[in-house]
């Protein structure tokens, strides 16, 4: 039971991060390394708003998502858009952006560890296993968000435009879709999702200016495993790696710290057998 709960929570967090990362990569070919830094900024926003200003946690979460989305849009407009055609430059610029966020958080909040109160305190027992209410709430919220995202992508005109641009940017452009505007909207959605992940997970984690690094590696692993730019792939891969991490912790107590390494090894193994990832387009085909 514990493996299932832990796997579901970890997988859902990775799914939210990886899907939003895949979204902007698929549509605009932007490798946004600062993606998890936005997640960190959202977590610190909630810490400030609820802890220092005494705001209601739900209101704090909403404001944090808005703040992060605005930050993401500004970053796109002034930093990414001017160099968008040069993928390597975008990659480096977003690394710099993440470092700037890290240093800014360090300056404002120092390197001390911080925590955020859970929305619902306490736990319940299922088949002898103690499960936090906050974990169940987080999992439920993540499912709702993933559902909303699915509806947005599959049932709306905007979703159709995003999907068609992700599939073939040039053809979508020829069909009259404003590629740049669409990229900006997608960036907004992507960063908002990263912010939302930070918001829902803040009560379950410990805040530090370096908290963006560990999920970044796992998120990249999910994206590569699932297939670059594939949303479906990211979803499936996130749960594969989430459950792998949980299994390692339960099966090898002395090697709990190896959970990340084992997950990354699985990624390498899959890539050796299927270089395009689980649901990706093969590199030859893309060329």
């Amino acid at each position, binding site marked *: 039971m*514990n*493996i299932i*709960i*832990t796997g579901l*929570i*970890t997988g859902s967090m990775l799914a939210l991060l990886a899907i939003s990362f895949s979204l902007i990569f698929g549509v605009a070919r932007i490798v946004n390394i600062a993606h998890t830094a936005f997640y960190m900024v959202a977590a610190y926003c909630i810490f400030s708003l609820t802890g220092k200003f005494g705001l209601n946690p739900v209101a704090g979460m909403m404001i944090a998502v808005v703040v992060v989305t605005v930050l993401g849009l500004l970053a796109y407009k002034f930093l990414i858009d001017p160099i968008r055609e040069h993928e390597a430059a975008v990659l480096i610029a977003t690394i710099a952006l993440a470092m700037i966020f890290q240093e800014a958080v*360090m300056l404002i909040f*120092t*390197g*001390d*560890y*911080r*925590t955020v*109160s*859970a929305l619902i*305190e*306490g*736990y319940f027992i299922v088949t002898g*296993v*103690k499960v*936090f209410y906050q*974990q169940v709430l987080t999992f439920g919220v993540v499912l709702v968000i993933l559902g909303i995202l699915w509806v947005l992508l599959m049932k709306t005109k905007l979703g159709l435009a995003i999907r068609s641009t992700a599939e073939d940017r040039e053809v979508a452009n020829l069909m009259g879709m404003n590629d740049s505007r669409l990229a900006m909207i997608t960036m907004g959605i992507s960063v908002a999702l990263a912010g939302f992940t930070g918001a829902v997970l803040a009560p*379950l*984690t*410990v805040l*530090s200016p*370096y908290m963006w690094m*560990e999920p970044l590696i796992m998120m990249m692993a999910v994206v590569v495993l699932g297939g670059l730019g594939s949303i479906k792939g990211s979803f499936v891969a996130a749960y594969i790696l989430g459950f792998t991490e*949980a299994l390692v*912790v*339960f099966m090898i*107590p*002395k*090697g*709990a*710290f190896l*959970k*990340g390494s084992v997950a990354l090894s699985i990624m390498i193994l899959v890539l050796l057998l299927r270089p395009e990832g689980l649901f990706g387009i093969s590199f030859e085909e893309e060329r």
Partner: protein
Amino acid sequence: MKILTLGWRLLLTLCIVMAMCLPAWGRTIKIGVIGPMNFVQGKSHWNGAVMAAEEINAKGGVQVGNEKMKIELVKADSNEFLNVTDATNAMERLMTQDKVDFVVGGFRTEAVLPMQDIAMDYKKIFIGCGAATKSLCDRVAENYNRYKYWFRGTPFNDNYLVRTSFSHLGAGAAVIKNELKVPVKCAIVAEKAAWTEGMVKVAEATIPKMGFELVGVWRPSAVATDVTAELSAIQKSGANLIFTLFSSSVGITFARQAGELKIPALQAGINVEAQKEGFWEATKGMGNYVYTSSTYIRGVEYSELTKPFVEGYFKRFGEVPTYTADTHTAIAEALVPSIEAVGSLDADKIVAYLENREYLVPSGKVKYEKDAQGRPTHDLTWGPGYLTGLAGQWQDGKFVGVWPYKWVAAPGAPEVTYKGMVPLKIPPWMKK
């Protein structure tokens, strides 16, 4: 002409007076304070040094021979948690650019070792206030002429830290046995980090010898954000005592989740985050009954110097000093009295004097050790009458001193209890 002569005379007199006064307010003793300044360890390094400098300067400064010199602090951010090169650059800058007379601070062994070398290259006294590794002092014994400028300020070395931790564990086990009348089953939970490797091995060998059943070893990542899996397994193992070795954020995660899940076991050992004032808030009150080694606790007195230091620090900075704030001791108790005694800033003279001193400090009494061959190590003597450290426990929102409480260091030795100690408690949910 007479007026001109008078003017020249006045000018000359003024110059002479200025020249005479210059040493009194123009020359200072420059002390470099090096540490990770964006983190609590570095902040405490700086705060301790500031407090010492303020106290000494308020009294007119340091008497160096015939001169009265004030203390000037130079802050150096070693950034050593992230980059050891930043640490060595900061030390190099203190030596070449700031031209300090002495250095205090340092935290991570990996950074302190190269920083130590730089200070020795320039023959500057460096009092370490953070790294516990014994090898830092072994270097003094092995190559005295080069490393004699190094002194350990705090904490006592890692061998003694382990020894103290087992004393804490023993005290916890005694309460479990007395109150629950059950055999002690102990779990080891140590973050995956270099400093815990040796300690885990020693603990695995020592715990069964102490008469406790070792039920397992868990090694979460130092930055793990979820340890519910480990906690479930620990509860399933039947452990009633958890030996913790945490210096990073996992200390908060573990204590918070264990408290929230009401895991029926006492946490004892080292949890650096639990030594901080902010721990109660960081765990949202779930860190109740966490029991950890510590250096200073409000209300606990090792010597007559403890209370003025702890309360003065609390008044000045709004928090209880952590052990890296012992830069205060390094400056106010080690360096300044030695400088005044030898009447000089000459490092060799100060070393010769300081290594033979035995003096009171806020955390006990300092006496520098010699190794088995009688060579000076400049390491700190551990044990009753010298430095022992403390252990504190969070009891309903307050961090209180619980060890040493009627502690007998060796058979036949007298009991040791410092002023302000209270009995250790086990979590009430262990009694159900």
